[in-house]
């Protein structure tokens, strides 16, 4: 399964005028893998995709697909398929012609075209007889997206590229399409590069996620890895909502460490390699990993605090608790499980930080 890399980007740089957008992007994707490029707008993920497609040329670096160097190959010869954010269907052609478009350039024989189109339309769940003669403007967003996918897949490309394909759909449609795309990708076993700014989407669909940070990849790992073991403050902050606590190592023992905050709170964390006495660290705890108790317990890391604000949102509540000099954002269930009550401002509560859920980071601290 993991043979040599199938799609490789090596040290890609790209500038637009004065803006140095890509500052050395390295990406190595195996055949059949689904990798998502995730990041805020302007970070370079779409530029990377466009360079892979050949729509833009990198200033320096290499692009290799299946071992072959692609830099001098124009887009129409790279054998890729691409799905665009706004579908980019040919408005002046019916669905059948839209999908069959790429087949003409592969010199597929006229007899084979209808069967190939039929097969790919079955794959994306668009009955050919109903849809073949319709025009793009007669289709819903979801249908258009599926035609777009079919068009890209019918030419049996070596790599499938998707540029934020679901951002123009409503929430329900997005959910179902995510599953669809993943199902199709697995069935066809095609190497896929997916670009999005939606973290949920990235985590839900990918084999690996590459987090972009101002022009380079900050971390590329499986969704679980990214979520539980973010490599930096940036990554931890980007995916999900985390609380960041600055502190200094006070004590190091066999399996654990004690980290002390400026305000004097002592937090027990699992030991990691770079922990030495007095070292400055940043701890990160996800908002949904902090428990709220109404009385103390004997476990570690239970601190007393006061509720500063509480926003009831139905299925969840967003509670801010002041603990010493810290202010912690907590996502809890809407009402207390046992008592059924909602937390009130001014209330005294106890927060529990389970050491297992504390991520220890080095690097630049942030807001």
């Amino acid at each position, binding site marked *: 399964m993991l043979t040599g890399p199938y799609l490789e980007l090596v040290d890609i740089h790209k500038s637009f005028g004065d803006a140095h957008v890509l500052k050395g992007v390295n990406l190595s994707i195996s055949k059949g893998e689904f990798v998502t490029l995730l990041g805020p707008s302007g970070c370079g993920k779409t530029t990377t995709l466009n360079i892979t497609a050949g729509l833009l*040329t*990198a*200033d320096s670096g290499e692009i290799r697909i299946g071992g072959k160097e692609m*830099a*001098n190959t*124009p887009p129409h010869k790279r054998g890729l398929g691409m799905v665009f954010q706004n579908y980019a269907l040919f408005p002046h052609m019916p669905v059948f012609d839209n999908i069959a478009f790429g087949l003409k350039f592969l010199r597929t024989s006229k007899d084979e075209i209808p069967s190939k189109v039929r097969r790919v339309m079955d794959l994306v769940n668009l009955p050919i007889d109903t849809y073949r003669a319709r025009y793009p403007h007669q289709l819903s967003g979801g249908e258009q997206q599926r035609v777009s996918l079919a068009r890209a897949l019918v030419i049996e490309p070596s790599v499938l590229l998707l540029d934020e394909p679901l951002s123009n759909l409503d929430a329900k449609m997005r959910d179902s399409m995510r599953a669809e795309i993943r199902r199709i990708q697995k069935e066809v076993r095609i190497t896929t590069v997916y670009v999005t700014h939606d973290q949920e989407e990235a985590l839900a669909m990918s084999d690996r996620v590459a987090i972009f940070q101002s022009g380079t990849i900050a971390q590329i790992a499986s969704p679980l890895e990214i979520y539980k073991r973010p490599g930096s403050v940036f990554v931890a902050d980007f995916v999900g909502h985390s609380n960041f606590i600055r502190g200094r190592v006070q004590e190091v023992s066999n399996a654990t460490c004690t980290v002390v905050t400026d305000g004097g709170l002592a937090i027990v964390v699992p030991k990691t390699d770079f922990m030495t006495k007095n070292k400055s660290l940043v701890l990160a705890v996800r908002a949904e990993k902090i428990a709220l108790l109404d009385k103390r317990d004997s476990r570690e890391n239970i601190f007393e605090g006061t509720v500063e604000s509480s926003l009831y949102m139905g299925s969840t509540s967003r509670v801010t608790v002041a603990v010493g000099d810290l202010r912690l954002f907590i996502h809890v269930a809407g009402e207390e499980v046992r008592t059924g009550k909602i937390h009130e401002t001014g209330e005294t509560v106890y927060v529990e930080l389970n050491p297992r859920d504390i991520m220890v980071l080095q690097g630049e601290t942030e807001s």
Partner: protein
Amino acid sequence: MVEDMKTGQLLLRCYVYLACIIIMVPVIVLISASFTKSDYISFPPDLISLKWWNQFFSQELYQRSMLLSIQISAVTSALSVLVALAAARVLVRHRFRGKTILSTMFNMPFTVPQVVFALAALFFFASMGPILPIHFVMCFLVVELPVVIRTISANMSGLDPDLERAAMVLGASPLVAFYKVTLPLIKPGLIGGFLFSFLSSFNNTTIALFLSNPGYVTLPVVIFQEIEFYAYPSLVAAASFATILSLGMMFVISRFVGIASIYR
């Protein structure tokens, strides 16, 4: 790194630059021919002299017609901006049943050939007596109204309607709100519309030709008639003057509203 469009793009660029040069040729020829020393029109000019420009500025016919052109254009432009402003205001800010009909109506002068309208105007005004400059004004007004309305509307629709509403909530009457809020913000559109109308009136040939009579001739008409009969280089100076004036105004207009916005 190869862009396979490179040769295509290069060719296109060459074509465009070449075309631009060719477009400029007649204008350059005209203006440089006006500096000739000889007594007939020639390009390239054999020897350089300003004598035809002197002639142009001193000849009574040219001076009189130029003055008339300027007067008519000024009045027309002022009127057209006022009328267009009112019309644009209605079209941009309100929705009502007859709106399409109204805007079609304002667009109608576009759909009628100038020759046809020139003829109609001639008949209409001649039947009421001798043709006067004010008749020129009315005709030019009609012909320019669609474009000026369009220019001002474009400018106005870019303006947030909530600005005026905010002013009114704060106590200003609709008129004051319009005067103090909207008007200053659409000034570029108004100035652009005025200048464009001025330019169009000044340069209008077809209608002016049909309406012209020995008492009142505008500069383009003089040039037209002179081409037919005399073709002295002072005519070239006259034409060059009109050209330079037009290009100058065009430049100013482009500073206010940008040329293309008029036609979008």
